[in-house]
């Protein structure tokens, strides 16, 4: 198992390096191939009515005048060893892992990512717990009571959940439960370190909104998986052996049906940790999703690079954890 994990960790590093190369190429190489010069790129970050010498100064300061391979090398060096940058009055050190500094606000990217990550983490993990428990439970019950009123109702609600976007359900939730009936008034992010109760109270609506979407999906997946599994011969055998129905369902039915759920859960959670863009925007929570939108709006390349790298990191790590769990659930995967 240890070798398996080490192997996956090494692969993860290579994968992230590959992502960094591709991302860097998309934002720095492709425009150049399309004819954009470093001077033109620098002109985007020098404000209004600049004279050529001012653009040139910005080009030099941002390092855009260097060959691309050197720029990339500098970027990677910053991530693994930190880097110095000029803030005007003196030279500041941006320590490991420095993802460069913003072309717009001239602040290091990493501290901004780190400051936003807890918000996204709070939303994603809380919602994930809700949707996993809710979705899987409903899926199991629906499968066991196939064709019943509960099954039809829950699958109907699940269909609505899958169909309704977060920005719609979120706004409805806010309108109803924050403004019309102020059960959760003035929803805004409060750090857990500041006030755990307020943290949770303010996150309930985002959690429920996000979980509604995913729980619906998971309920349908679980139901389909359970229906298939519960029809297998070994389930019949288990029942024939006289095992309690609960044991048959949980140990033999659900465990087998969970394999695809674990896979998709890892991917979903990894994606969300990179930024729950719609949820954060709807509830005005300052997480990685909002950071991403701002970075794109400002065409702030280092910030975009940073958020892509952190999102990739979460996805790759989530996948690795899924693979490890797979190995636990199904030992054949280890070999």
């Amino acid at each position, binding site marked *: 198992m240890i070798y398996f994990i080490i192997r996956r960790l090494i692969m993860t590093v290579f994968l992230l390096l590959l992502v960094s190369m591709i991302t860097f190429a998309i934002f720095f190489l492709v425009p150049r191939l399309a004819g954009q010069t470093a001077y033109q790129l620098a002109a985007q970050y*020098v*404000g209004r*009515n600049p004279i050529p010498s001012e653009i040139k100064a910005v080009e030099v300061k941002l390092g855009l005048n260097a060959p691309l391979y050197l720029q990339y090398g500098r970027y990677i060096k910053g991530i693994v060893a930190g880097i110095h940058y000029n*803030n*005007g009055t003196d030279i500041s050190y941006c320590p490991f892992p420095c993802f460069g500094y913003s072309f717009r606000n001239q*602040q290091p990217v990493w501290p901004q990512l780190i400051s936003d990550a807890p918000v996204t983490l709070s939303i994603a993990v809380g919602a994930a717990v809700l949707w996993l428990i809710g979705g899987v439970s409903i899926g199991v019950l629906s499968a066991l009571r196939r064709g019943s009123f509960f099954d039809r109702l829950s699958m109907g609600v699940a269909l609505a959940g899958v169909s309704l976007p977060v920005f719609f359900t979120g706004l409805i939730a*806010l309108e109803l439960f924050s403004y019309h009936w102020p059960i959760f008034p003035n929803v805004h992010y409060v750090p857990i370190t500041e006030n755990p109760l307020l943290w949770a109270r303010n996150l309930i609506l985002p959690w429920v909104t996000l979980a509604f979407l995913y729980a619906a999906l998971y309920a349908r997946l679980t139901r389909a998986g359970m229906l298939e599994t519960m029809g297998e011969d070994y389930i019949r055998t288990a029942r024939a052996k006289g095992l309690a129905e609960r044991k048959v369902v949980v140990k033999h039915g659900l465990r087998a049906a969970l394999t695809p759920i674990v896979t998709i859960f890892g991917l979903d959670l990894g994606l969300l940790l990179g930024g729950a863009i719609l949820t954060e925007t709807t509830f*005005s929570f300052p997480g990685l999703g909002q950071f991403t939108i701002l970075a794109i709006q400002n065409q702030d390349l280092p910030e975009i690079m940073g958020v892509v790298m952190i999102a990739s990191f979460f996805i790759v790590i989530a996948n690795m954890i899924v693979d490890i769990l797979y190995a636990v659930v199904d030992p054949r995967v280890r070999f």
Partner: protein
Amino acid sequence: MKRRSIIAATAVGAMSALLISACSSSTSSSGSSTTPTTGAVAFNAGISSVVNPSSTKGGTLTFDVRGTPDSFDPGNTYYAWVLDFDHLFTMPLFGYKSCPGSCGLQLVPDLATDMGTTSDNGLTWTFHIQPDVKFENGTVVNSQDVKYAIERTYDRSVMANGPTYYQALLTDPTYPGPYKDRSKNLMGLTAVDTPNATTLVFHLQAPFPDLPYVLAFPNTAPVLPSADTGSNYQLHPLSTGPYMFKSYTLNKQLVMVDNPNWNPATDPNAKQLATQIIVNMNVNQADIDNNLIAGNADIDAYGAGVGPAAQARILGSSSLKANADNPVNGFARFVYINTKVAPLTNLHCREAVEYAANKTTMQTSWGGPVAGGAIASTIMPPVIIGYKSFDYYNALTQPAGDVTAAKQQLAMCGQPNGFTTNMAYRDDNPQETAEATALQASLGAVGIKLTLKGFPSGPYYTNFAGDPAYVHAHDIGLAGGGWGADWPDGYGFLDELLNGNAIAATGNTNISEINDPVINNLFTESSKLTGDARTAIWSQIDEQAMKDAVILPAVYQKTLLYRNAATTNVYVQAYYGMYNYAVMGVSS
């Protein structure tokens, strides 16, 4: 120098605001000093009077804002709301008198003691600053701190966002800024002398009577050289205003508290009523509107008005409406008519466009009479000093378009059946897109066939509408646009739009390419005049440009602002077109 785009509108400094009715009913001339009136809580009460006047100290004043500031470094900002907000922690040389109505257009000394004196035929300006203003750390402000604040703006690699007037106006335009070689360049700007601790002498390349307006930008707020942290200064600028930074999480939340070294006697245009000020950033507009109505937030700092859902809700409720104001601000929406693209080279063809356009559908495109604006018949909006009302093309009397007059002009132009031309517009701006479509329909009614050419906002003025070579090569006769001035007089509004000198090969602001000697001479004349004589020139230029039919006015922009009922001392500051943040308090 000025800007012109919807982005610029938000990023730009100077906005003036006033309700048309307030303008027309006011007997005081612009710039006159009046005692602020107090008004009951009512719709539009905040435009001409102080709503909820109070001197009670206490409470937390909460601002929500969509997006983020360009920077809280006073030397590195151009966003309108930040220029307004900066007065809570800065004292520039000049400011706009804190009062409602047209009084709020009056430029007054802030850190300076008077409006300055000129000599050397207007090439030298001398200003004195107050001797007893202190930074938040107790250090007394001196003239070198102001000079240093100006020096910083010269380094665009650190200060990219702010205006760039100093390089254009002052001698020593190649000064590199104080950062590159600090030992050599600190206090190295030769265009500004500091003969003593309270005197500043500015040397200009050419006479420029509007210099005090330029010095009203927050980039003249003093910066202590030893406290300057370059690009990090935005995280904690050293305050000279009533509040100072307590904490600032970049682009998320700012918390400010009382500045113990602020003396109200030195800063009559600001107050220190709330004990704490919080700015929540990146809040979406729907949330902001709901928070304001629910009382969770006090003011929408962005100042561009509530969103469509809240508009309907506020206007449909008498109690909510009483907490709203609907001012005209200093921004105008219009369509440039190019004088170098045939057949619009002919005055009568341009006049046909002016007559045929349906101003009502254009107004609807911009959001209607409340959220869009009032139908315009002039280039300058009513809130600009020097504005005069006239209506050469029946925009106000026949807003649906004067088809008869348009056809007469087409006949005189030699195109009795109409003609074909192209119109550029920003296709990522839904309102401008709607305007182009509406104009296409109304011009089509008289035979003018408009082919619409959509472009992205980013390079719109650099690569397309603002590039005369591109415009000529692609027969772009009309181009959508808008404009807000950096300061509220006719020069600030009209110079870049209509002066023949402003025609440039790229980034052109005179998109009509009007090079009328009459207009050019009036601009030249204006630099030799002051006072009422100078003010009178602006309407002459506006009228001449409308006679030349080089701009098709659409609307004088309006916004629907909402004030939380708990806020005190609330009114629209005419210069900004939004509430005056420097004087507000909160009752609970």
